[in-house]
């Protein structure tokens, strides 16, 4: 589904060049829920931004299905973002002037899909994520958890190959964070969504099928969940402790 090969990315600051991603390779299969973890500065968000082509990478390849994203022009990339990728941002990025329903419909509106279809689909997702009662409310009138579930519903509207989520629980309390993770799990179960999530939150990551741990721009460990969630979380915490991350990274 999503395949990253030998991805390199560095930032240039004045005369200095600072490598952030060094030969990163990974593969995510259809229906998988994968998290990327690691200490601050390990390159998690940069990896996500390179995959979504928000920022260009120096070398390597990013394949989505049969499509190589590295060489696409702006127009084709826009189409990929609309049809094949879904995004969930840490600060929700909902449009304040649109209601919950309208925000969810937005990807299909951009794609020019029929109205009846988009309305039915948005309603289905709202019910699925428990936000059907607030469909006509505006972002300013709903809670953080509801906003993020709205964002998850929006990300799913065009049946993307992968949902890319950047710290989706970062701005939420634990109850709201659990609701958002539940939304991802439901999406995975009911519509076979593939989710690639960058997170600091080991609790959120413990719900994933697999966790990739980055350190200094390289893949440090890859842990697959085999048993109970609690055990998996303990395993993740041990790995993070071995990295010497600060308290925040071990949340």
């Amino acid at each position, binding site marked *: 589904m999503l395949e990253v090969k030998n991805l390199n990315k560095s930032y240039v600051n004045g005369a200095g060049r600072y490598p952030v991603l060094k030969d990163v390779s990974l593969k995510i299969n259809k229906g998988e829920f994968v998290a990327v973890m690691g200490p601050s500065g390990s390159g998690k968000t940069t990896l996500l931004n390179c995959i979504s082509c*928000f920022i260009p990478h120096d070398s390597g390849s990013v394949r989505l299905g049969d499509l190589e994203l590295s060489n696409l022009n*702006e127009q084709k990339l826009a189409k990929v*973002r*609309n049809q094949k990728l879904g*995004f969930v941002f840490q600060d929700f990025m909902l*449009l304040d*002037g*649109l209601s919950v329903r309208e925000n969810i419909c937005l990807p299909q509106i*951009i794609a020019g899909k029929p109205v009846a279809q988009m309305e039915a689909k948005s309603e289905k997702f709202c019910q699925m994520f428990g936000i059907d009662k607030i469909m006509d409310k505006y972002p300013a009138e709903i809670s953080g958890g509801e906003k993020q579930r709205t964002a998850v519903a929006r990300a799913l509207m065009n049946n993307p190959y992968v949902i890319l989520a950047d710290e989706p629980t970062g701005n939420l309390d634990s109850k709201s964070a659990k609701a958002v993770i539940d939304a991802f799990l439901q999406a995975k179960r009911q519509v076979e969504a593939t989710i690639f999530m960058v997170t600091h939150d080991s609790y959120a990551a413990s719900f994933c099928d697999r966790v990739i741990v980055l350190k200094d721009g390289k893949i440090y460990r890859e842990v697959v969940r085999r048993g109970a969630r609690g055990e998996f979380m303990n395993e993740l915490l041990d790995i993070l402790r071995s990295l010497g991350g600060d308290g925040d990274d071990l949340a």
Partner: protein
Amino acid sequence: MTLHKVYKKLRKSSRGQYLLLGFCIGLSVLLLTSFTLMYYGPTVQDFLPEGGDTRKMAMLLMGVTVVGCFIFTVYASGLFFRHKSREYGVMMALGLKKKELGKLLFQELSMVTAVSCLAGLVCAIPVSWVIWKIFELFIISNDQMIYRFGLAGFLPGILFSMLLALALGAAGRRFIRRSDIMEILRTQQKSEMVREIPGWTLPLGVILTVSGVLLGSGLPQFIARVLYISLPGIFNLVYLVSVSGIYLILLSIVSMNRARRNRKKYYKNLVSISLMRFNARAVTRNMCVSVLLLFVCCFAAFYGMQYSLAPDILDSQEGRGFSMHYPLEEKQIGKEEIGRTAQKYGLDVEDYSEHDGTNLVISRQVLDFNEDGTRYLKLYKEKEKTALFVSETDYGVLSGQKVSVEPGTYQTVTTTDYREFFEYVDGLSEVMNPDTKESWQLTFGGVLECDVLAAMSDPFAYVLSDEDYRKMTEGIGSEYMEHLVFFNVADINNSYDFAMDLLSQYVDRATNLSNHMGYWDIWEEKMAVQDGELYGYGEAIDMSMDNNMLLGDWKYAPAFNIITVQDRMQLISVYVMLSLYICLISLAAIGVMAYVRSVSVASDNRGLFESLKKLGADNRYQRKILKKQLAKIFQYPAAIGCGLGFLFSFAMDLFNDGRISGTERQALLILLGIILMVCVILYGVYRYSMRKAEQIAGI
């Protein structure tokens, strides 16, 4: 739901942003067009002399105002784009193409710009009329000053609208072409760091600012008077020294806060200073424009004020209210016609006197430019032109002043309080009878002040002893002689109709003998003809009452003070109105800019106030931080701009003739009053902006 409906809804939700942008576009077009409608209207154009200083000054100040209006509108568009960035970032992340968004943005910008410009252009007519009417209440007291707008005035407004549309289009294009989504998504959090500002920035800024003004206004005069060198026009670029000084002052105010000096103060202002530091460049630029606009505002007000405070010649105790001089052979109106006409208007003629004067050829010392105009030269001009001479007895009768002139000397007749640079009152050294060609050496014997007689001759009129006058004019032809008539009427303030009637009779009787331009000189023309050269002032003029410029460009124009006063009143009204209008435009531009900046400070830092709240800051503390920010936006530009306006006005007056006259002192005092008024208005805008900003920041 379609994309079109989404756009519509988004527009509706950010109506405030569209309104603010539209308001700024409309306001700048409105201000400029209402001014140009009035300026290019026949009423104003008929009164302003071609190529005169006021036209140049009006154009210069208008140019600065155009720049000010342009900057604040483009600035408002920046705020608009910043607001839009989030929407567009999300749309792009969800797969909408840049091209689509670009199309949408241009459609929206075109719509807002077109509607606002059109509204500005249309509203300019009533606004210009209303402002004229308001001015009419205070300064225009003449029936001839009817508001007439010139269609040509729309042209600058339309050009300005097009320029704005282009600039906004370019800004929109830049916004859309931004490199990637990440930048757009993070625009609202973007900040610019400034480098550490060294401690000498502020003192250097002050030195540069003051030096620029003093050098620009004082040095050319000093060099001309002491070294006789004329500095080229490019020297005016020295004012840029002041502009860079202003930038340094503001930069240091915005960015500098050193802990070393006063740690308590440092920590007290830490949040507020850090807020500005991260937007230092934008804030400084914004303040710079405000300072320059305030400078324009003060200087324009001062310039207009100078005109309105010119001494009232009707109150003058010296001379007569009516005077005429015409070629001796001209059969002009005399005492009888004047008396008869006065009777018709119920007026009594007083102090009537008439005598002859003679134009003799003079040799004198003058100050002039060299050929390339770079140096002043003291030149002796031998037998170059004629000047009007009268005898001491005739002068006594004509002017009412008893004088005694020693034989072999002359006394120079000047206007009251004469202080000119190029002409020496004691420059005359020899006179020649143009017919007999006999010459006499003369020495300077003093100065006499008589406005009416001085106005009849260039560079001056001269008084000789009776004996010298008789001797030197003996055998001279009548073509060199003039008849001079001076008189008064009992009620001069009600003599306008009488004066116009008399003027009409005078014009009717004038023949080709009198048909000469203001600068015409009989001797210069003769010499030019003799040398086979073309004489530049030899052309005839339109000697009719329909010619508006007749009194200004006629060698033998009669001087009837009541007409001069009325004409001058109209001229003053026009000057004052132009100046005050520019003052108003600048003030409006500053108000809008400061308001927009205040709103953006509040909206950009909403997160910061939220954080402060979480850290336990109460509303009072947050309000204090916000107040400090906004106060800086208003206080510093007001202090620097007004201070600079005052300093420049003072320096210009001082260096012009090396003194501050009574009128200038009065104008400077009034300028202080205007500065106070500007500060009160800005305080009002500040209070309003503060309320709005508190609302936005959620305090």
